Structures are given as structure tokens and as C-alpha cells.
């Protein structure tokens, strides 16, 4: 009994295409980890395994056995790879050759085994094709995963090339994603008619192109967690939580929806205040990941006095009975700009006295949505500027900041509360919890103050700051979130906490001694952990809260606490290349400083188009030439077979070719209604072909029948179908 082949789920052509996809996926995956030989072996074995799996499937290989073979192959790959390196059998080989051979053996076996098993499973149940798609897309993602979290300067080999050509690496990466996904989807195709397959693949290309076209300029809104509610996403999450829970704690609520595509940057300015009424003592116990959130470009040199640059986003000055929140009355903190500049320059209330400060112009380019503008503290003016790269930066604006240029020692002797302040303002900035322990602790701290400075607010503040720095322990593991007064729990407990605890405790202690204080939230960038350039890359893990105190006649000053003890890991160094690259991009240099800046490289679509057209033309030409030669062969003395074949070519060109397993006689009978002369012609041809030498009159008869058949064929077909037949360059391929 003859056993028939199990029907394959895909045709041979599709299987070859899938082998190519698997080979490319394997090559992509191995590009990071294998030697070139290992890569070639892996890709080749993956491609061969696709064809082998199809072959074995059609020969009724048990799926379980196939998967077991694949598993054994995977294990063998590991064992043989190691064995090859360790064995002394190949001691005559050089070290390099041994490593390359082991690599080829390991990756070849591994890729072949995985592919073989997956292909068999996919042939068995289509649901397993989903794994194949994941594998192919995952291979590409693995190769380029370094660029995640806005690290667009990676992978180097791609980013450097793209930037040197003036191409945004994101475009290349997205293009690769589109191509990979399209190739992966091909793995889902099952047996189809050729026409349907071609139409579907063409439609697939259009879909891929459309997705690329529409998504290439769309900004990725990465969700960045700072732990302090600084980003828009965190604000939305807070607002959501707030609407579900304690609405009474609401500040102004809501960030701003920015118009990201206008190239102008900035916000519509509806936000402000930002809903920081939510309890700030609830951040994650983990240090936020160091994702880039913004780039600041300095227009002038700036030397920070304490090595820290404070980029403030908002301030908390209103005591709500539990902790400090954003003042939503609009009467206070007018020196803090809480709206993005849209069309006009925004200026802060003149609280800071410029005589003590230096004006520092900067440009801010936000990579992540923030509900309020972020600016070097203390910002006094925000100017709308053009966003140089809307697909990269969420917002862009210019900032004029006032940075203290006077030595702190020269501020000694000034009081904190401005005599011109109204009683309400004084009360606003001095209000503390109804807990006498704050004042008692502050007085205890100040007991040892130098009598010369006993009444000096700045010195008092310094004493308190010093106390907290010595006694406090910086850790993220303690929250005190559920305590009625988290700052008291921190301060009167073991003094273990993080910046929010320190900032609130300091503000309460300052206020208890009549020093106007508030808490600022933003990012504190250590200048020692950054590059030398004029741009500063701000990372999410630099999110920080710090106290600010007011000095009458001067303004608000950052008065940060630096605990001497900490269990926190030192912050990672900023990727200097990324910092400078983003800085250059912010300045409008597409190359990120890698190219010569004048490069205006563009994808050579015209060349690509002409090349495709030329290849297409060449393919057509080859088809027509072969067809022409086959047509001319009878006239060139090709014999009766050539005449017969030339006639059959005509039939094939319009889809009337002989089917598989169809005899010549049956084919002739099938077309007899169309070409009545074909059956006798076929008989005659067979007689001449199989019957040995024949008289010349039979050859003449065959030529006559050929001519008659051709005439009948022409007469029977509609004009459009004949035209299609004439234009078809590869109809002869189907002649059999």
C-alpha cells in the first residue's frame, strides 16, 4: 500500500521564504553574541531546519518525536560546544580555530534544533506559529535593545552610522521593526493560491509602509517614574488615585496636555499647581531607573557652588494639616512659573533680588512629559522656542534663571521674613504642625549656636541643616506614609528616610524658628557625575525634594540637606555621549554632533526606485528573450517538438497549461472545445516523438496542425485574454 505524503501547511515557495526569515532572524539574534562563523552556521542551520521540518512533517514524523529530537539537539549543542573547547582531540587546532569551530557547532546545532522543533509544532497546530512570530520579532528586538529608555546613541554601530548620515536612529530602528514584523507574519501563512498569496503580501507591504509612515514621527511617551510625582504620567496616576480616594487632598489637579506636534514645544499652560496635594511620602522604595527625562542646554558657563544643579518643577508651601502641598490659592509662590510658555514669554513675580544673583540663560528640552515646566532654579522667565525635533522632545522652551552668585556668608545678618509681607503671607510660610516637638527640637538644636548669631535666621537654618545631615540616615526603605504626620515620625523616630522626609522636616523646623521655608521638587544634578559640555542630561533617578528658605531682600534660596549616612548606591555616571548627543540635537544638529553637521543625507529613494525598476525590467527582459527564442525555435530548425512546445507556450501564457498529473491526451481533450485541432496534433506529436523516424509528410502535417491550432486558439479567445497572453513573459515556465 502506497502511503501518501502528509499535506504540508505551506507550499514549497512559502517554505523557502520562511527558511529565509528564520535564517535572518537567527543571524540578527546571533549578531551580538556569536563569531561571524557561528553566526553563519546558526543562520544556515535555522534555514535548513525549516526545510527539513517540512520534509519530515510530510513524511509523517510524530510531532512528539520531532520535539524530542529538537530538545536533544539543544542539549547536545551545549554539551558538544563545551566538549569541543575542552577536548584534547583537536589540540592541533589553533585556539582561534577551536573557538570558532565550537561556536559554529554550538550555534548551528542550537538554532537548527529550536527551529526544527518550532516549525514542527507550527505545522501541527497553528497556534504555535505565534511563538515563531515572537521569536523573530524578539530576535530583532534583542539585537537593538540597547536603545531602550531613550538611549538613542545605542547600539553604537547603528546609531553612529545613522547620526553621521543625519538620520535619526529611531527611524532606522522603527523601519527595522516594521520589516521584522512583516517577515514574522509570513511565518503565519499557510498553503494559498499564488495569486491570493501575492495580493496578500502586497497588501501586507502597504500596511507595513503605512504604519511606518504614520508612526515614524510620532513621539514615544515613555512612562518614567521618579517617585516624586514629577512626570505627567505619575501625575495622571495620582489624579486617578485621588479621584478614587481622598479628593480633599487635591491641589489644582491635572497636568497639561501638550501640543506635541506643533514644533513649538511648550504647554498650553492650563496646568500649574499640578495636584501635588497628594501625599508625597509614598514613593517607591526602589531608586527610579536612570531614564533621560530632559536636556538643559546652557548658553553661558555656569559653575555651581556646591556641585549640584537644581532643576525645580514646583514648590510645596501650604501646610494642609498633614504635610506641605502646592498652594492652590494663587496668592503665594508667584515666583514659581507653573505654566509652559505657548506664544509669549512668561515672567515670574520679582521676588528674587537680582543683585545677589547671576542671570543664567538656558534652554530646556523635555524628553518626558511633565505637568509643569522644569527649569534651573530659580527661573524668572520662560520663553517659547522652536522644538528642533518634535519626535524626540516633548517640549522646548528658553529659561532665564537667577543663580545665587553671592557667598552665603554675605547673607548673614538678614532676617527671613520680609517686613513687607502681610500677616497672611507670614502665617502661610511659617505655619507648622500643632506639634510642640518641632519647636522644642529646633530650640534644642539651636541651644549651642554661637551667641553672635543667636538671632540670625540664616545661621539658625544652617544649624538645623547641619543637625539633620549628621543625625539623619538616607534610605528609601522607610515611608511613614500611614503616619498622621510622616515628617514627625521621621524626625522624632530614628531619622531614617529619604529626601521628602528631610525636606519636610527641615521646613517644619525652619518654620518653627520663624524662618520662611517651603519644599521644592524637581531634579538635582550632580555636576561631578556629568560631562564637560554645555548640556546637562537630567535623569529620572535624580528626582529630588529639597527645602528652600526665604531671606528678606534676597529671595528664595535652595537649602538642601545632605545626609552624611546613606544606604543608597552612588548615582550612575551620566552617559556622556548621550548627554552631548542630545545636547547637539537640541541645538538642531541632526547628527547629534557625530557628523559634520552640514550633512543633509536623505534616503536615496530615487536610486532605490530606479534600481527596483531596472531589476524588474531585467527580469521581464529575460522572460521575453526566452519566450522569443522558444517561439523562434521551430523556424530555426527545432523540429516537431519545438513547434509543439511553442504552441503549448501560447496556451500556458493564458493559463491553459497542462495540469500536474494530466496526460497530453487529456490536456488536448480538455482544450478540444477551444482548439479542435489540438487532439489530432497531440496524437501526431506523440507518434513522432515516440514512434521513431517518420516520413516527411507527417512533419508537414504536424506543421499544418500547429498552424490550424494557433488560428483556432486566436479566434476562440477574447482580445483582452490574448493581450494578457502576449504580455505574459513567463507563461513558458508552466509549459510541461
Amino acid at each position, binding site marked *: 500500500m502506497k502511503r501518501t505524503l502528509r499535506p504540508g501547511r505551506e507550499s514549497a515557495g512559502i517554505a523557502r521564504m520562511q527558511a529565509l526569515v528564520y535564517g535572518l532572524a537567527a543571524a540578527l539574534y546571533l549578531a551580538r553574541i556569536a563569531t561571524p562563523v557561528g553566526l553563519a552556521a546558526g543562520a544556515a542551520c535555522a534555514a535548513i531546519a525549516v526545510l527539513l521540518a517540512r520534509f519530515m512533517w510530510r513524511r509523517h514524523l510524530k510531532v512528539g518525536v520531532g520535539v524530542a529530537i529538537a530538545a536533544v539537539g539543544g542539549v547536545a549543542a551545549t554539551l558538544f560546544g563545551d566538549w569541543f573547547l575542552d577536548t584534547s582531540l583537536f589540540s592541533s587546532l589553533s585556539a582561534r580555530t577551536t573557538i570558532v569551530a565550537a561556536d559554529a557547532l554550538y550555534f548551528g546545532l542550537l538554532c537548527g534544533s529550536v527551529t526544527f522543533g518550532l516549525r514542527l509544532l507550527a505545522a501541527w497546530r497553528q497556534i504555535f506559529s505565534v511563538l515563531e512570530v515572537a521569536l523573530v520579532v524578539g530576535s530583532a528586538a534583542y539585537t537593538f535593545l540597547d536603545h531602550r529608555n531613550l538611549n538613542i546613541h545605542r547600539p553604537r554601530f547603528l546609531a553612529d552610522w545613522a547620526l553621521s548620515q543625519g538620520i535619526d536612529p529611531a527611524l532606522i530602528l522603527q523601519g527595522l*521593526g516594521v520589516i521584522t514584523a512583516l517577515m514574522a507574519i509570513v511565518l503565519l501563512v499557510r498553503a494559498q493560491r499564488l495569486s491570493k498569496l501575492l495580493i496578500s503580501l502586497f497588501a501586507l507591504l502597504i500596511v507595513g509602509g503605512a504604519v511606518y509612515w504614520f508612526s515614524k514621527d510620532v513621539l514615544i511617551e515613555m512612562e518614567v517614574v521618579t517617585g516624586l510625582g514629577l512626570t505627567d504620567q505619575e501625575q495622571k496616576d495620582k489624579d486617578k488615585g485621588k479621584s478614587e480616594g481622598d479628593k480633599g487632598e487635591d491641589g489644582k489637579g491635572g497636568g497639561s496636555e501638550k501640543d506635541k506636534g506643533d514644533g513649538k514645544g511648550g504647554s498650553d499652560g492650563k496646568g500649574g499647581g499640578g495636584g501635588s496635594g497628594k501625599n508625597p511620602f509614598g514613593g517607591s522604595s526602589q531608586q527610579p531607573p536612570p531614564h533621560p527625562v530632559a536636556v538643559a542646554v546652557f548658553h553661558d558657563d555656569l559653575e555651581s557652588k556646591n556641585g549640584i544643579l537644581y532643576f525645580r518643577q514646583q514648590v510645596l508651601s501650604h501646610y494642609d494639616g498633614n504635610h506641605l502641598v502646592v498652594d492652590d490659592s494663587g496668592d503665594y509662590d508667584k515666583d514659581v512659573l507653573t505654566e509652559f510658555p505657548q506664544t509669549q514669554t512668561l515672567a515670574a513675580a520679582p521676588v528674587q533680588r537680582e543683585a545677589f544673583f547671576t542671570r543664567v540663560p538656558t534652554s530646556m528640552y523635555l524628553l518626558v512629559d511633565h505637568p509643569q515646566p522644569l527649569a534651573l532654579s530659580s527661573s524668572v522667565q520662560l520663553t517659547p522656542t522652536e522644538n528642533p525635533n518634535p519626535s524626540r522632545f516633548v517640549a522646548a522652551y528658553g529659561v532665564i534663571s537667577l543663580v545665587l552668585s553671592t557667598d552665603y556668608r554675605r547673607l548673614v545678618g538678614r532676617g527671613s521674613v520680609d517686613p513687607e509681607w502681610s500677616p497672611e503671607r507670614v502665617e502661610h510660610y511659617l505655619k507648622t504642625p500643632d506639634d510642640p516637638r518641632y519647636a522644642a527640637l529646633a530650640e534644642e538644636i539651636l541651644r549651642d549656636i554661637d551667641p553672635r548669631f543667636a538671632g540670625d535666621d540664616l545661621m539658625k537654618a544652617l544649624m538645623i541643616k547641619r543637625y539633620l545631615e549628621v543625625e539623619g540616615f538616607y534610605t528609601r526603605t522607610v515611608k511613614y506614609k500611614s503616619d498622621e504626620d510622616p515628617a514627625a515620625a521621621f524626625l522624632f523616630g530614628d531619622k531614617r528616610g529619604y529626601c521628602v522626609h528631610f525636606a519636610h522636616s527641615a521646613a517644619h523646623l525652619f518654620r518653627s524658628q520663624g524662618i520662611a521655608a517651603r519644599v521644592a521638587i524637581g531634579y538635582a544634578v550632580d555636576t561631578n557625575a556629568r560631562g564637560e559640555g554645555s548640556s546637562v542630561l537630567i535623569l529620572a533617578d535624580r528626582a529630588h525634594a529639597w527645602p528652600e528658605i526665604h531671606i528678606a531682600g534676597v529671595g528664595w534660596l535652595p537649602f538642601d540637606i545632605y545626609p552624611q549616612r546613606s544606604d543608597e548606591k552612588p548615582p550612575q555616571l551620566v552617559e556622556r555621549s548621550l548627554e552631548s548627543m542630545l545636547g547637539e540635537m537640541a541645538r538642531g544638529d541632526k547628527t547629534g554632533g557625530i557628523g559634520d553637521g552640514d550633512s543633509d543625507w536623505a534616503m536615496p529613494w530615487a536610486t532605490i526606485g530606479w534600481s527596483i525598476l531596472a531589476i524588474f525590467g531585467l527580469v521581464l527582459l529575460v522572460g521575453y528573450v526566452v519566450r522569443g527564442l522558444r517561439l523562434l525555435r521551430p523556424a530555426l530548425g527545432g523540429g516537431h517538438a519545438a513547434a509543439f512546445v511553442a504552441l503549448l507556450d501560447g496556451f500556458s501564457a493564458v493559463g491553459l497549461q497542462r495540469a500536474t498529473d494530466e496526460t497530453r491526451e487529456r490536456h488536448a481533450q480538455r482544450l478540444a472545445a477551444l482548439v479542435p485541432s489540438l487532439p489530432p496534433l497531440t496524437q501526431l506529436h506523440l507518434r513522432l516523438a515516440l514512434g521513431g523516424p517518420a516520413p516527411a509528410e507527417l512533419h508537414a502535417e504536424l506543421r499544418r496542425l500547429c498552424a490550424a491550432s494557433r488560428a483556432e486558439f486566436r479566434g476562440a479567445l477574447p482580445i483582452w485574454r490574448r493581450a494578457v497572453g502576449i504580455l505574459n513573459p513567463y507563461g513558458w515556465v508552466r509549459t510541461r
Partner: protein
Amino acid sequence: MSRARRTLHWARRLVGYLPLSWAGLAVGLGAAFTLSRYGLDQADFTLRAGCFVVLAVLGCAMLFVLLGALVFNLSLGQALKRHLEHDLDVGADLSTGLRIPRFKWWPFIDISLEWLDPPGFEPRLVVDGGQYVEQVTAVERGRIFGITRRFTIRDVFGLSAFSLIKHQTAAIRVAPAMGDTELAVALRHSSGDGYSHPSGKPVGEMIEMRRYSAGDPLRFVLWKAYARTRKLLVRTPERALMPQPSAVGYFVAGERDEPTASTTRYFLERGLLGQSFSFVADGAPGIATNTADALEAVIDSVHHRAHGGEGLDRLAAAVDPRQLGHCVFFVPASDGPWLDRLAAFSRTLPAPPSIVLAVDDELEPPSRGGTRRWWQEAPTVSRELSKLPALYDRLRATGGEVRIVHRPTGRLIGPVELDALRRL
């Protein structure tokens, strides 16, 4: 029905309306998760674009499938309102005249068809220009009064599928297939035992001769005649002068009775039951005495498979007792309660009955020697044939003479084959 069950029921119905396959659901969920987890949260440009493409393709597939379903539904028009009337034999192709669009130039989508009711039909779509034409092959006899079809429009990637279920009234009569000519040879080999010829009982000497035909034993070939004439002739028994007495036929319906129904039709149409036979089939209201009525009874018996042999008592009451000496039972090739009824009835007969059954299954499973049995899937050969020896033994125990016909080859399955089957 509890609330949970009701919810589950409605959830299933709702999912049925979703144009998504399991693979599509998995791809969609996987792409959405990857897009959210890596594409957006971690700003992975490659995965973001890739997931967008996958989701876009999924969306397009669903859109085209739904659009195709809509167009298909509209294009059906009044086609299924037509009452369908046909007569056909089992195994024969029937073109129902239903034409549906091919969607030849539509990307992504393709269409398939199956008959939900009645079962036992294998419809297929044959390309005819820009349309598909429905053709169907019946695999069992019966009468069909309505057809429920399920048209499935799906995409070429297997991500999306949408089914439309349509009903059409019909009056289709499916008669058992007529046995082929080799069956005649098989029956002739049983000559001497009562069934070799319709009009005579060939019980005489081997004195007659005829042209050799396939299946004739070589020992009956007249080699001397062949040497003279170069024609193969064989000796055959002398035919009985007395016509074969008319028989009583009874068709027992049951599982896997279609081959036997085919053999029964052969008996009826070739007159192998004699000139004036009586025939009863399970479920038939009366006794048929002509071929047409008998065939209709066989066709109708398909609905009484669960009650095989229940009409035997009626047979005894209705038929002339003299005829019961030549009883032929046509029985299904599967065990069942009918076997006990048949055994009980056989004991009341004046002479041992003849029992005929036919099978379709492969007699010789493909060789899977060596290591192949370990790695190669077993061919899809029905295992029912392995039960045949046991059935044969039980039928033999009734006292009847059992003849098993292998319908595809027309051969009688003899003791040698049965012994081989015992070892399957």
C-alpha cells in the same frame, strides 16, 4: 441554568461573534502586551513599530474578514431560498448549483464551507471563473430535507475568521452506491454455496467454460486451449436447471452499515435474491417485494440505526414460512444489540441463514517495520477492521453462513485474511 452558566453561555456566544481565531487572539494580546511593556514603557522603537505592524495587520485582517462576510452575505441573495431537489448515490459528486464569490482580488481573505447538517457530506468549493461552485459528495445514504451550511471567511494568516450559518430547504435522496463489477466476481467465488448466479444454482460438474476474468483461480484455466488459441478460458460449474428459490432479505441498520447497504443494492438490482423476493429493512413499515421499494427501505433505514434488528419479529409474522428457508441478512460491520436479536431469530429459522456484510477499511496497513513505528505517525487506518474477526465469530455462532465482502476490492474476506486481522 445558574447565573455563572448563563454568563458563560453568553460569553461564548459573544466570542463567537468576534472575528478572531485563537492564534489571532494570542498574537493580538502578545503584541498589545509587548507594545505596552517594552514599546511604550521602555521606548523600544523596534518593538513599538513591530507591534504596530502586527496589530495593524490583525486589524486589517479583521476588517477584511468582516467586510468580506458582509459582501458575502449580500451576494448570497436569494440563492439559499431556492428549494434544492436531487437524487444521487453515495460517493457521487453533486453540484448543488450554489455559487459564491471567490474574493479572488481581495487581499488577506479566503472562504471555506462545511455542512453542519446533515452530517456525512463532504462539500467543496470548485473554482469556476470568478466564483466558487459548491460540489458535494455524500458518504452515506439517506434523505435530506434541509441543509445547514457554515461559511467561514478567514484571513490567509489564520488570525481572523468569521462564520455565517445558513439554512436551505432541500429534498435530496442519497441511495447507497452500487457495488462495482469486482463484487460480482467476489460473489461468484461463493458459487456452490447458493449465491453464484441469479437464475440458477451452479452445483454441477465443472464442465462449462467461459473467458477468463480477473480473480478466477488459475487451476481452472484451460492451458491446452490457451496453447491452441492464445485465449484464456476457465472451467465453470454446470448451472443448476432449477431456478434459485426466492429469498427473504433483511437489512439490519447499524453503525458502519454503508458498505453493506451498497452490497444490498447490488443484490437487489442484480436479482440475487430471486424473482419474487421479500425484503425488509429496519424501520420500514412493510415488506417490499420489488427492487425500488426495497432500495427505499434501505435508504430510510439510516434513521433507525439505533434499533437494528427490531423488525425481525415482524418479518417472521409477515413472510411465508417456506421462504424463511432462504434468508439473507445484510448486517452492519459493527457490533450491537442487533446481534442478539439476529441470533435469537436465526434459531427459529428452518435452515441456517446467509449473512452478508461488507467493509470498506484497508485490509493491509502500510508496512511500518524497523524503526519507523517509533518516529512515524501511524497511518489513518480505521481500527474497526481489527474487530471484524470477533464479529465474524459471533455471527458464525448464530449458525448462519457468513460472507464478508471487502467492497473496495470486491474480494471476499476469507479465513486467511481474518486470521491476519486477528493479529492487528
